[in-house]
């Protein structure tokens, strides 16, 4: 059975090991979908403000910040999510600070595992069910914690046999388990440790959750600098004698410049090997390739460039 394309799904979780560019890719993906005329909500789970920084807006809150006609950004807040939940489902109006309820909730969230996770996942699934947006792009937890988050509704289902939360976790599971609606994207760089963790995480996702692994984004691929004709010439230039000749003609020491090109080719070669390891390690999952940007900073410009690269890979 062919799985639906990533761009058609309404709930996309983006995870990855720290430092691989998870947030930048999530922001780029949201921007790309918005550029493609979809109504998109980008949601940050960890509330670090990195997603807001990727769009260069003031720190997003639970109530979405409108960026354009097609794009809004929010930051997950479990207390606000609980408030919304109480208002919508239990008809308990909560105005301003929820003091005692929040305290009770805090306690409950520590006592009853999965409550915090379910409020996060619940809010996202609710937005999907209500179809306020065409797509939700979630800058989700890093690799170490994503399983606990995605598996929370299942865990609650195992623990709680009756009651309101049980009926809630049922429909959430339905949305999460449907590959036409929900997909997980793992972001990695073509380096040994991130690739190894991606392969391990892919196995855990399949074993422990019902969420479909839709794609793996390989970020920061280095460009191929030299073709087969150029390589031997570069090698000649990179010898001590070759570099000395160049330095003499230029009238300055060129060792550092040639060494930088050597570093680039060595890094690229290593990364190509890792790309192959990933292909073998996670067969059947589409790899989306994004080049190294060599940027001065992260921010809107990087987000737009990533969106352009992703569009080339994902849109017909």
């Amino acid at each position, binding site marked *: 059975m062919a799985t639906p394309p990533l761009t058609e799904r309404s709930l996309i979780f983006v995870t990855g090991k720290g430092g691989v560019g998870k947030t930048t890719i999530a922001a780029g993906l949201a921007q790309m979908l918005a550029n493609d005329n979809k109504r998109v909500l980008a949601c940050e789970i960890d509330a670090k403000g990195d997603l807001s920084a990727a769009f260069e807006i003031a720190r997003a809150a639970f109530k979405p910040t409108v960026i354009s006609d097609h794009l809004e950004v929010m930051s997950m807040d479990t207390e606000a999510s609980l408030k919304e939940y109480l208002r919508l489902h239990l008809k308990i109006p909560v105005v301003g600070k929820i003091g005692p309820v929040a305290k009770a909730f805090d*306690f409950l969230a520590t006592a009853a595992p999965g409550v915090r996770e379910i409020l996060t996942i619940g809010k996202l699934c609710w937005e999907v069910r209500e179809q306020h947006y065409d797509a939700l792009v979630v800058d989700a937890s890093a690799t170490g914690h994503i399983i606990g988050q995605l598996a929370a509704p299942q865990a609650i289902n195992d623990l709680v046999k009756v009651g309101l939360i049980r009926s809630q976790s049922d429909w959430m599971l339905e949305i999460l388990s449907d590959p036409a609606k929900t997909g997980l994207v793992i972001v990695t760089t073509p380096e040994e440790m991130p690739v190894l963790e991606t392969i391990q995480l892919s196995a855990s996702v399949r074993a422990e959750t019902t969420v479909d692994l839709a794609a793996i984004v390989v970020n920061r691929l280095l460009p191929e600098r030299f073709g087969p004709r150029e390589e031997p010439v570069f090698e000649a230039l990179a010898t001590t004698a070759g570099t000395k000749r160049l330095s003499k003609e230029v009238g300055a020491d060129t060792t550092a410049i040639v060494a930088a090109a050597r570093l680039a080719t060595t890094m690229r070669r290593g990364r190509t090997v890792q790309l192959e390891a990933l292909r073998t390690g996670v067969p059947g999952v589409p790899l989306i390739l994004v080049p190294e940007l060599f940027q001065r900073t992260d921010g809107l410009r990087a987000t737009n460039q990533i969106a352009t690269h992703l569009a080339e890979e994902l849109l017909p």
Partner: protein
Amino acid sequence: MTATRAGTIETLLGSREIVVTCGPGGVGKTTSAAAAGAMAASRIGGRVLVLTVDPARRLADALGLKGIGNEVTEVPAKVFTDAGLPLKGSLHAAMLDTKQSWDALIARHAPDEATRDRILENPLYQNITGRFIQSHDYIAMERLYELHSTGEWDLIVVDTPPTRNALDFLDAPARMADFFSSRLLRWLIAPARSSLLNLASKPFTQIADRILGTQFLSDIAEFFLSMQSMYEGFVDRANAVARLMADERTSFLVVSSSETVPLREAEFFSAELARRKLDVGAVILNKVLPDALSDPGALATAEAIEQRHAELAATLAGPMKVDEAVLDRVLLTVTESYSDFAVVARREAAARERFASEGATLITIPNLEGEISDMTGLGQLGGYLFAG
């Protein structure tokens, strides 16, 4: 590889009982912890333990062990001699298995076997220990406390989960102490303890009941009721761990790369540690690009090559015995590659300066070839850590 204060890491590892490495993910934190532990065992001596609490299992690779479990494993002396390193003391490693550690903790502190079994069989307990996140942070602290209080170790190097989680890790003891002394907890277990429903707990249990269902609530209540005899111990140990983190026996190493995002997180973390009056021993920056990339002289030279590429190719093709057109392309590519990396290197250097201006002791480690997966690599990395 410049340390602004000479011998900092060496002094630190030789004088503290606990050194905690923390920082964002993907920057070589686990490897740095392993290298610090290995160097302490190799050059300083004593019984050194490296404890990793990161859910991702990477330490075994770096120590050349096939696998490490919850139990402490000694790294064979041969691993050091094979890597050409001296071994003054001994190196041991352990990984935190959340479930096993919880089970052991319950078994150790339960007042009797019946209570122990009731807890171990409670469905809620199994979920707390197996699946959920916060319990990991707490049990990590319990384990550290347990290992430290055996008095067996001269030095324990602790590796933590990535930044925001590392903060949870620090907060875990206090949260656990708060939790077990909570009034709400008493309300919650009151109905299970007596048929007389505590009036004060009524509104709370009513809401909780509507949301969670009665069975789940009584599972929770039963669980905490069984745990009750151990509360005092939990609170005591939580407070002891908090004191241990704050006193002079403990120091923190913040590990980062000099890329924008990890560095921002590392700065945040250093500030948080300082705010909590915890000791930041040093900041280790991994994967730093060569200085030459941000050198103004080299940049001018690269520009000169770019401007004169055709002329240089024409002059050099003959003596080098290569095709002129190909050499021309190679020269252009070399300068392009240089300026690409130079942008990144300059950005990173600026960020480093900002960090250093905040008074942190910076230790920079160059971009080492390949991933470190053996003791030789750890020794090389350790050499940079100890240099200064």
